[in-house]
């Protein structure tokens, strides 16, 4: 078959994609500089921290700030982002909303579960899926990047099950590759369940794979190792840096697009359902402004709920900022977050527990429900999300880092038929 390289028409999209790539490189620089600064530029500390990060079983919740310190955690995040950016470059994929979301998600979760060693098997599996499907890897790159959600599976097999070296490493590689391979078709398939109303769709798919794996391990009498690591840190160490970064995003957005205000007003009317690529349809300027604003809002939420400024919570914050290029904005994000916070207060879980605090941030995965069906629906689905997320983690034993994506998919899929029926009934279409 002849190969015809695709030549897209010249548009503002190409320029935006170049600027976005530059901005992500700058983000990589911020992560690196912060990690090095916090470590006092002590390479020995960073090296020891990296070893501790790599050899720890990474099932939820494994806060790298707790086991290695914030410095090595951020250096690890920078390394993982470098790998992801390089893969996007090699695949010649334009940087737009989904790629930005993937990069920020990888950065965030590289503070508590993903590391420079365990992200590879899943990505190799996704690459093999592309080879087997005889399709370019560029078509599967987004699944490959988000698919690093199952990275703890490799770490667990390598360092948590007590297998002897080098067989443990070989088994870890195989397990990760198989998970990455099957994640690609499953991630596409499960979209149908929630119809794009759960932004962390790969987490939903990974939850099923994690559940399948956990069930098998349980049947074989294998128990997972890995403890609960959660650092208690105040905002003083990180919030100033993050605030400067969010402000810089907003200023860059305003500079890039002098008409950003009108674009942003249009952006705020988007339901945010998959696929809402804000870069493509509202421009990079308005998208950066939205990312900055969402960063400040999520920070304010963290301060309000008294959250610890550790790896998982900063990871959640960065994920929100990333997905603010791909579906989230203040109007559709706040209702589910508020719903989750309210339910936490009403329930026995309380707002002080790590699970509840993470759920409040990650309830924003259900932003499209509020965007499409209104704030009341968003609030209620946020409440449902909180109760589900406290339970579903047990199904996959923490092997799926995107536990909130798993719960979010279930919540959206259960809520949606009722909401749809109500809308049709009100329009007299039933």
């Amino acid at each position, binding site marked *: 078959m002849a190969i015809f390289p695709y030549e897209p028409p010249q548009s503002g999209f190409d320029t935006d*994609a170049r600027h976005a790539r530059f901005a992500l490189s700058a983000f990589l620089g911020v992560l690196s500089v912060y990690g090095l600064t916090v470590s006092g530029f002590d390479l020995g500390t960073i090296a020891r921290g990296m070893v501790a990060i790599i050899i720890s079983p990474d099932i939820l919740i494994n806060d790298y700030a707790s086991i290695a310190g914030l410095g090595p955690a951020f250096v690890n995040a920078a390394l993982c982002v470098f790998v992801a950016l390089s893969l996007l470059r090699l695949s010649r994929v*334009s940087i737009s909303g989904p790629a930005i979301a993937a990069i920020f998600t990888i950065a965030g979760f590289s503070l508590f579960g993903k590391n420079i060693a365990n992200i590879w098997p899943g990505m190799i599996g996704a690459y093999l899926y592309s080879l087997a499907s005889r*399709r370019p890897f560029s078509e599967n790159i987004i699944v490959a990047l988000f698919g690093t959600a199952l990275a703890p599976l490799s770490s667990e097999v390598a360092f948590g099950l007590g297998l002897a070296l080098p067989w443990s490493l070989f088994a870890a590689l195989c397990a990760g590759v198989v998970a990455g391979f099957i994640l690609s078709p499953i991630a596409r398939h499960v979209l149908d369940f929630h119809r794009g109303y759960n932004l962390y769709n790969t987490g939903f798919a990974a939850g099923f794979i994690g559940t399948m794996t956990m069930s098998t391990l349980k049947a074989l009498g294998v128990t997972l190792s890995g403890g609960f690591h959660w650092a208690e840190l105040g905002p003083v160490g990180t919030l100033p840096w993050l605030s400067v970064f969010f402000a810089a995003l907003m200023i860059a957005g305003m500079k890039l697009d002098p008409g950003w205000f009108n674009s942003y007003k249009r952006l705020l009317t988007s339901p945010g*359902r998959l*696929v809402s690529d804000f870069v493509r349809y509202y421009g990079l300027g308005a998208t950066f402004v939205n990312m900055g604003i969402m960063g400040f809002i999520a920070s304010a939420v963290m301060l309000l709920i008294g959250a610890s400024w550790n790896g998982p919570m900063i990871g959640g914050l960065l994920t929100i900022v990333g997905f603010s290029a791909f579906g989230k904005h203040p109007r559709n994000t706040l209702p589910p977050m508020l719903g989750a916070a309210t339910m936490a207060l009403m329930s026995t879980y309380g707002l002080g527990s790590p699970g509840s605090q993470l759920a409040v941030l990650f309830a924003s995965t259900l932003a499209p429900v509020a965007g499409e069906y209104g704030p009341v629906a968003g609030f209620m689905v946020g409440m449902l999300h909180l109760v589900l997320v406290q339970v579903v983690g047990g199904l996959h034993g923490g092997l799926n880092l995107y536990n909130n994506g798993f719960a979010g998919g279930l919540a959206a899929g259960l809520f949606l038929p009722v909401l749809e029926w109500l809308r049709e009934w009100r329009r007299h279409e039933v």
Partner: protein
Amino acid sequence: MKFDAAQLMRVAEEVLKYFYTKGARSVKVAYDFGTERSFCAISTKDILLTAEEEDYVRRVFEGPVQPEIANYYGTLAGRRRDELVMELVGTMAELEDVQNEEGLGVVIVLSRREQEYRSARKK
């Protein structure tokens, strides 16, 4: 069925749905499946697009095809559901022509290349 053919069918189904929501009740969809490039034309004489609607259609397809999005999220397009996903469709196919004239009605012609998609411009 070839993947690219199935994707083009999803795209056509979504445009069909768009026409329906604008009031069209008689819509024709025609395909021409080639080995390296396939085309589809969706036409109706029931409606005319307003200038704003025509601008929207052109804007949806303004950017390049993005295989990384189309391949992953493409299954959301073309389902006979209440919601339109025209923005997704814009990442899945190229706009060849839009005709929007009194008497002729509306004709949208789209195409999709076989396999070798790249969202980035080749240097």
